[in-house]
């Protein structure tokens, strides 16, 4: 049995943010991650991040991961890699599979930072090799240096679809079309403009209705959609492609939170079913914190700040002292709020507010 004060599951931006802040306050902090390398999705992000300098704006994602890992290391955070959290045991400990060996971990507080998974999209031919998620293609190219194809059709104009289109173009692929079912680009306009300048056509109110090919994708059939998202007959166009990528959103990974008995809610704008939490990132289970995409899909900077908030509160609740606990918590909240300000983030902001109101009911009085 391994003993720690704070156990963090997931070493992406949220988990590392939590670990850094908890360790800074003097808590014995252990992070487990199922991957061979810590940093989560940050190592796939070769573009410069938005935000302000306190959120590492202008720094590329993989560089942010390097900084966070160095900081965590300097603060004495222990990270167990190749270690998958399996779930909760009857005695309250967390079962993990560490390098193929089962272990249990006893912790005073558990911070879940397990992220999200990509949504699928079903259309005729979707099981053909060559159809995959945008995140998978990004992992191949940016982690393993393998371009998944030469002629790409991207589905989805959120930031993932836009950024992966840009990155695959940088890698030497040709993005033949980016289709978006709704009438407007859903990601940042500046990301869309970047790929427009590169000559990538963006078709709004369009989707892929079929992938064709003998034993691999050879072409994508795209069509215009009406106001009810039904393909308009006669608008079909065939695009020669060897790869169709799906970037139609993500949904929170909630399996562990469910095992810990965390109360759930449904918020479509943040990816679907997710645990509720209060403004300290506490779930309905006072022992368990939730943060990052698993607590509502946003982006890496917000995940990092949510993690920091969870880490600070978890450490304080274990009696760790800072010069001013309230100021520390409020500073993390303000940083998070700044990322959710502005007209573009209105829906996210309101949705998060609703989740926190629900979460707060578990701690009223």
């Amino acid at each position: 049995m391994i003993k720690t004060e704070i156990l963090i599951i997931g070493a992406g931006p949220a988990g590392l943010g939590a670990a850094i802040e908890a360790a800074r306050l003097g808590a014995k902090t252990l992070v487990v991650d199922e991957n061979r390398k810590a940093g989560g999705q940050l190592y796939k992000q070769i573009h410069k991040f938005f935000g302000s300098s306190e959120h590492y704006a202008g720094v590329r994602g993989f560089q942010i991961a390097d900084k966070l890992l160095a900081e965590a290391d300097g603060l004495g955070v222990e990270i167990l890699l190749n270690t998958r959290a399996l779930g909760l045991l009857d005695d309250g400990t967390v079962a993990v599979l560490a390098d193929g060996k089962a272990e249990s971990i006893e912790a005073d507080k558990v911070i879940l930072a397990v992220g999200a998974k990509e949504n699928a999209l079903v259309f005729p031919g979707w099981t053909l090799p060559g159809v995959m998620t945008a995140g998978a293609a990004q992992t191949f190219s940016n982690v393993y240096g393998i371009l998944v194809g030469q002629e790409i059709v991207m589905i989805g104009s959120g930031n993932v679809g836009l950024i992966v289109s840009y990155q695959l173009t940088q890698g030497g692929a040709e993005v033949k079309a980016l289709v978006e079912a709704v009438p407007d680009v859903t990601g940042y306009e500046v990301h869309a403009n970047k790929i427009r300048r590169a000559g990538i056509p963006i078709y709004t109110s369009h989707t892929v209705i079929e992938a064709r090919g003998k034993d691999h994708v050879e072409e994508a059939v795209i069509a215009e959609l009406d106001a009810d998202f039904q393909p308009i007959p006669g608008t079909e166009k065939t695009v020669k492609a060897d790869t169709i990528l799906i970037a139609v959103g993500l949904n929170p990974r909630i399996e562990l939170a469910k095992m810990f008995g965390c109360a759930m809610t449904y918020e479509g704008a943040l990816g679907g079913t997710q645990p509720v939490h209060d403004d300290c990132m506490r779930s309905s289970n006072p022992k368990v914190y939730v943060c990052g995409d698993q607590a509502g899909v946003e982006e890496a900077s917000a995940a990092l700040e949510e993690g920091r908030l969870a880490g600070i509160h978890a450490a304080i609740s274990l009696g760790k002292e800072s010069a001013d606990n309230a100021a520390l918590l409020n500073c993390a909240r303000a940083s998070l709020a700044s990322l959710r300000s502005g007209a573009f983030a209105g829906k996210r902001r309101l949705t998060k507010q609703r989740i926190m109101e629900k979460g707060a009911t578990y701690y009223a009085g």
Partner: protein
Amino acid sequence: MRDKKPGQAVIECPQEIPCNPCVSVCKTGAITMDGLTARPEFHREKCVGCRMCVAACPGQAIFYLIDDYDADHSAITFPYEYLPMPKKGQIVTAVSRRGEPLAEAEVLAVDETAVYNKTRLVTLKIPKTLKDEIRFMKRLTRED
């Protein structure tokens, strides 16, 4: 390339997104912002033409334009993150915001420094009549 001819940053940042490296990187206060998600404001009289904002903008939404490079030409600088890189003196195809080819253009400069953090700045000599349309160049292939 630091040209002494007067120019200006052209900021094409249409949405209120949480981002301000253009403000942090500008040493003369020529770009200001009223809060992290406000849209940036440009003060031409304070701009010294360093082009740091062009390299810093994560959205690649800032361009640097010298209206009067010579009698018939303007010069435009934009960020470029593709390979192969163009070379100074090379003739390339200048394109619009939608990637449509608009003119042949000479590469006046290709700049790269550590502080740009792996982004290169390309400056093209373009017809003055197209200075409000040209924003990029056709990506080069290995054959170019």
